[in-house]
């Protein structure tokens, strides 16, 4: 029986820029950042308050094995093909204003939906995420 999510990948265009975005703009915690002897870099971050969940900031080159596939995947990421995750927050209006002040691009401002209040933002690569404030039970 599956018990927990521990790791999930986000395909990014540039790991250094992604590290800055997730740590400095979203406030995520860096977890592992090690260069590999064979080349490549293992880079993970955790959402605030969830140290046991690691998001792997995985470069396009590690997710495609030919130059053609790298080019195709780069284009798909850049053009916002992938909706990656939903993050929740206590106060969406404060979180939205703070993220905007830090330069995060939103595709959708906070809007009341039947499931809560939701905004949609993009990371520095083009991946999009839902930011939600769910109704209190």
């Amino acid at each position, binding site marked *: 029986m599956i018990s927990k999510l521990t790791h999930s990948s986000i395909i990014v265009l540039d790991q250094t820029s992604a590290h800055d975005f997730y740590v400095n703009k979203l406030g995520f915690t860096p977890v592992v950042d*090690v260069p590999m002897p064979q080349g490549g870099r293992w880079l993970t971050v955790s959402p605030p308050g969830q140290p046991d969940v690691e998001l792997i900031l995985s470069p396009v080159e590690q997710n495609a094995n030919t130059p053609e596939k790298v080019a195709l995947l780069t284009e798909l990421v850049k053009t916002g093909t992938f909706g990656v995750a939903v993050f929740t927050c206590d106060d969406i209006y*404060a979180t939205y204003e703070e993220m905007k*002040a830090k330069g995060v691009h939103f595709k959708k401002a906070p809007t009341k939906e039947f499931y809560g209040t939701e905004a949609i933002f993009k990371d520095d690569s083009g991946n999009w995420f839902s930011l939600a404030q769910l109704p209190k039970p």
Partner: protein
Amino acid sequence: MSDYPKMYLYRRLVQAKLFIDSHYAEAIDLDLIADEASFSKFHFIKLFKSTYRRTPHQYLTFIRIQKAKALLDAGGPVTEVCYAVGFESLGSFSLLFKRVTGHTPSAYLAQQQVLKAEKAAAPLRFIPGCFAESRGWLPK
């Protein structure tokens, strides 16, 4: 945006929070922040706490401890870290750090150095095998 409540209040509140985020190392006068955000002190503290679950003072301490952890992660000496994040005495820094993290700053620094050395010496121990295999990082 018609359902966007009290936008001007949020902007002022967020600016106050961002001010703490960027000036935590200085001797911040929280009364002054309330004035600059055009709030009464009472209203400012109430709104700040309802949004961030901490009073401005508790938040300032929280940020200082978080920044101290990051500096200690990078190997900074305890005394330097203490003053670099805005504490005026090593005693109050150590006390608060231990209260928040469960460890004294020097114990935390030692633990992080061991962990850092382990990650550098055997990175594969920190990477799920399937990912390491797919990237060709496992020994042949």
